[in-house]
């Protein structure tokens, strides 16, 4: 019974990690899957959100301050997304997009380091969520339970937005047949800018929400970017369900997998990714609308 209890906690922890990963990765997936833009500055936007947490959240802060910080993070993220849309406007080649966005990421990382220093910074969770609960005889931090809940809500809102609203229909139509949407009188460049802004806003929000767990430090942007890329590619480009599945898989590999196979801990993530890609190159749940799948 002790074995089950111990691994139940790992299982739950994997879901919490998946929640964080989903928030950060879903923006990348949407932008790449629907707009065909490879945005390597995604990690830097997420780090921006984390440092906003460092700047705005004091120890013992209330939920109001937390909500405000989340709003600020989203707004800053959206602004970053719009800036990136403008920059990547004429760049159609994926490799040049990579060069451009990585250049932006390097500049942003250096500026953040100038502003906040090279030391590791930690962010306190809201006072109400700063504790632990007793689960099946094990102690588990309350904040991670909140992360699970919050990311589920965000995922549902996104799904409804994309699948059940007029705005979402316009986005999907733009991806499927841009010329036709233009013919209907809708400015598609605004639509694409909106998707990019939303994706970056989610990344920044994800960074803020992850900061009580992951902290904020130079180099975290690369870690987050790599994890997000793995999640997106495993899950499939352009689909929210794919991002959920990919996040869950990566989250469990990093917690339950490490718990069961500690000797191979450093190989589990990339080994799992390579395995999935060789069996299912398009990812586990790719979107039907992504240009990657519909092109050619």
């Amino acid at each position, binding site marked *: 019974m002790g074995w089950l209890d111990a691994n139940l906690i790992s299982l739950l922890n994997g879901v919490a990690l998946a929640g964080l990963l989903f928030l950060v990765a879903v923006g990348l997936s949407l932008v*790449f899957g629907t707009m*065909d833009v*490879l945005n390597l500055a995604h990690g830097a936007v997420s780090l921006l959100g984390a440092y906003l947490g460092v700047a705005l959240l004091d120890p013992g802060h209330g939920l109001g301050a937390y909500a405000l910080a989340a709003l600020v993070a989203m707004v800053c993220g959206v602004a970053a997304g719009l800036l990136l849309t403008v*920059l990547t406007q004429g*760049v*159609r*080649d*994926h*490799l*040049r997009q*990579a*060069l*451009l966005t*990585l*250049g*932006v*990421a*390097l*500049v942003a*990382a*250096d*500026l953040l380091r100038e502003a906040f220093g090279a030391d590791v910074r930690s962010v306190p969770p809201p006072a109400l969520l700063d504790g632990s609960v007793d689960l099946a005889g094990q102690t588990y931090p309350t904040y991670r339970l909140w992360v699970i809940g919050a990311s589920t809500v965000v995922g549902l809102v996104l799904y409804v937005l994309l699948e059940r609203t007029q705005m979402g229909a316009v986005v999907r139509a733009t991806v499927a047949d841009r010329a036709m949407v233009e013919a209907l009188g809708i400015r598609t460049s605004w639509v694409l800018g909106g998707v990019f802004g939303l994706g970056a806003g989610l990344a920044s929000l994800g960074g803020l929400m992850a900061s009580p767990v992951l902290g904020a430090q130079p180099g975290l942007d*690369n870690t987050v970017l*790599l994890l997000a*890329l*793995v999640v997106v*590619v495993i899950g499939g*480009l352009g689909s929210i369900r794919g991002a959920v599945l990919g996040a869950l898989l990566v989250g469990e590999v990093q917690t339950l997998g490490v718990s069961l196979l500690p000797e191979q801990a*450093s*190989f589990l993530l*990339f*080994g799992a*990714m*390579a395995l999935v*890609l*060789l069996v299912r*190159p*398009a990812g586990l749940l*790719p979107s039907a609308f*992504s*240009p*990657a*799948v519909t*092109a*050619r």
Partner: protein
Amino acid sequence: MKRWLPMLGGIAVLLVLAALPLLLTAYPVSVASRILAFALLVVSVDLLTGLTGLPSLGQIAYFGVGAYTAGLVGIHWTSNLVVQLGCGVAVALVVAAVTGALAVRTSGVVFLMVTLAIGELTHRVADGMTLVGASNGLAGIPGPTLLPGGEPIVLVGYLYWWVLAVSVLGFTAAVIVSRSPLGRSMRAVRESPTRLAAVGQRGYAVKLVAYAFAGALAGAAGTAWAVQARFVSPGDIAFSVSALALLSVVLGGAGTLWGPVLGAAVVVLVRDWLSGYLDGHGELVLGLLFVVAVFLLPRGIAGARAWRPAVAPPSAPHSLGSIA
């Protein structure tokens, strides 16, 4: 006259490079050695990315295999440079062929991520393997010799000449391959796989041969690296090096082979040499350089002067979206 211009240009560059040890002190020459070894790695990335349309983040793995093999040969067997080179290239070739057999079944962004996995897994294996010194790296590589039973070469200038010879050989091999029928098939894989099949060639076979050859080149670059540093550590094959190699290709002009060499030189000079004068802000300058280059040099450094290109410039934009 115009036809001979590239050849004359190449010979002039070669003469200048060969004369460096006679003109510069030890430290700049050692930087030049590092640039040359890294440039050969970048050329191998370009063979896959620019010519064959397979964007690769995994060449660093074969670079590491070559470097560690050369180091181990130096410590346990012989310090002869030619033997180290041969062993490094052979082992890298075999590893590339084996991993490539699986990797080239994919394409586009999936291929990119699979090669990323190969590179990162190799990095972590090196970090944990006691045979190669694990996280402390492989130290104590004895000075290399050229003739059997000869004196160990320790002077930076002579080591540089060896690295230059290896790089030039590797680059020449890459140019020969790119102009050969295999090279044409590689370009066909990038531009029109259906037409390639229509003339009866198998895309998979072409890609695998290209992958193995690129792996061998990366291995040669690795042996040169090990020779000039006499120290190999997992940090030499980290993901950041792999990413910079791919970015050097894009910066230099994917598909031209000589453009990425310039791209590699620029990246190394800015990051390692210039950053010493910039108070640790080398990455900021590098980032700005990348952003500016995307707008001012849309086809890379090589694209800035597209006159009688030695190899065909990339005609189609590079899309990672094809998962077919």
